[in-house]
């Protein structure tokens, strides 16, 4: 983080959203500054994934506002949001299994074809594992490789902010380390990152700042390091 006044790239303010008649989020706010890596943690059912889905226009916000680079993008459709510089990686089913690796990446760049070759090169240099297997079907990949491909697909539009829903879910500890290493690298190249994690320790050690959500409300926020040491965080996870 820089000492100059940070500029918010992504700003979600007082978001109210939910499924059916039930509100899951009761006015949640998060901010991602330029080049920042931010974690949202919290116990099961806190509304973390719902928040990401709402920011990305997959779920209607019933209240509040989402701004990207100052522009109001509340309730815009995903195919418009990817053009504005926002990308999203879902937690599960995040590749096209019967398409090849290369085709998966091409689909990531569906809305913008210029400079396709350079962006492909960048993804393949980030994930060399995928390079030799570009003609293989994504359905054949291991869990970790799928996660890499999913990240690669989301990077194909060179987004300003990347939304990641539990990137470490159901991966081996070694693979979690590798994936976070890559996410850090992507972040260091200037892409803002907002990620949701169950795995609070892993997420907070990798990120600059963190938000703790519980019952659809902001509970705590601050520097990731300070949250790691905060006793209240542990208590929240135990449900007290």
């Amino acid at each position, binding site marked *: 983080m820089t000492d100059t006044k940070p500029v918010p790239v992504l700003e979600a303010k007082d978001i109210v959203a939910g499924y059916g008649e039930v509100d899951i989020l009761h006015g949640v706010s998060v901010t991602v500054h330029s080049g920042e890596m931010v974690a949202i943690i919290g116990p099961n059912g806190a509304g973390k994934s719902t928040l990401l889905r709402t920011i*990305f226009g*997959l779920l209607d916000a019933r209240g509040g506002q989402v701004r990207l680079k100052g522009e109001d993008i509340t309730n815009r459709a*995903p*195919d418009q*949001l*990817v*053009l504005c510089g926002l990308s*999203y990686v*879902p937690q599960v*089913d*995040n*590749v*096209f*299994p*019967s*398409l090849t690796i290369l*085709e998966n990446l*091409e*689909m*990531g760049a*569906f*809305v913008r*074809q210029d400079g396709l070759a350079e962006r492909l090169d960048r993804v393949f240099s980030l994930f060399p594992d995928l390079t030799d297997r570009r003609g293989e079907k994504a*359905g054949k990949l291991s869990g970790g490789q799928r996660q890499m491909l999913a990240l690669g*697909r989301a990077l194909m*539009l060179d987004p300003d902010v990347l939304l990641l829903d539990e990137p470490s879910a159901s991966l081996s500890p070694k693979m979690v380390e590798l994936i976070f290493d890559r996410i850090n690298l992507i972040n260091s190249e200037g892409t803002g990152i907002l990620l949701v994690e169950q795995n609070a320790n892993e997420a907070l050690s990798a990120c600059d700042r963190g938000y703790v959500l519980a019952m659809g409300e902001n509970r705590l926020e601050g520097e990731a390091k300070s949250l790691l040491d905060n006793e209240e965080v542990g208590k929240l996870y135990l449900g007290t």
Partner: protein
Amino acid sequence: MSTYADRLRGNLRVFNEFVAGPGLWILITLLFTYAALFETQLFVIGLIVGSVLALGSIGLTLIYGVLRFGNFAHGDLMMMGAYVTFFLLNGTLLGQRRDTNIGVGLNDLPAGTERLGDLTFGYSFLIAVALSAVVLAVVCIGLDRLVYRPLRRRGSAIVTFAIASLGIAFSVRALLLIIWGPDPRTYVSGIHKAQHYPFDVVLKTDQVFIMVVAIVMAGLVYLLLFRTKLGKAMRAYSDNPDLALVSGINTDRVIFWTWVIGGSLMAIAGSLLALQANLKPELGFQLLLPLFAGAILGGLGKPQGALIGALVVGVAQEVSVAYISAGYKPAVAFLILILILLIRPRGLFGDAN
């Protein structure tokens, strides 16, 4: 208990991978070799019947692949395409007691009915088929807006889509009966001369034309799906509609083009079928079983599979005539369907998962 079930599942998978798949290919090779050697004439006719079926099956498999439901209206919409071509050629509708003619038709074009080479039709037919393809594309998009899109927005189950398509099938057939009546129709009346080919095969040139068109169309659909951006997006949508949306793929456009291509194929298939058979409203429904048999045999969602599957169904149906009554032709298609569902439900080209 679960270990037993796992073992059983494992065995089934091994059976499917190493026995059922190759076994099917061997069976098909045997059928084709036997038919080609000993029932050459029926074999060739089978390939032509199969070609027409293939055009229908490819459309069916494409719509299934993208929209994930079996379109039971496919046969009847094919017939609608055939009738639209008929109308465009002659301008004929059913009136009271006798036909009404609106007085103009593409057959009135200068030299429009002059035969192209040994074919029975002139260029007016080609124009009529092309226009009919446009009409059917529009009809399909209209049906999607009216029926399927509201179901999609409601998140309806697949079976709801299938039943809705069955309703459309009944309505379309009734509409054809009202507009053109129950009498059989033909595009070109009179006796069509057949040509003699090597191995004592007798064929009409129209039939050769049908086969070439079917193979070219299958090739085009394959190229579309695997070589173009739109085709890849269609496959992506078929794989995972939610992720397609997240990737920024305009899913409405993918569905739009699926219906455009599916509808055009319906019109072409129906019109080619009517070139060599009498056109009747109920023909579409009778086609449904062999169409599904072909698509499922090839592996639902796979155009190259639909081509081969439909050819197999066509050949099996025609060759069966040498041994059992022709009335059992639909039973042959049904038998193939049952067999494939029993031993390898994913078909020849279907993905393992």
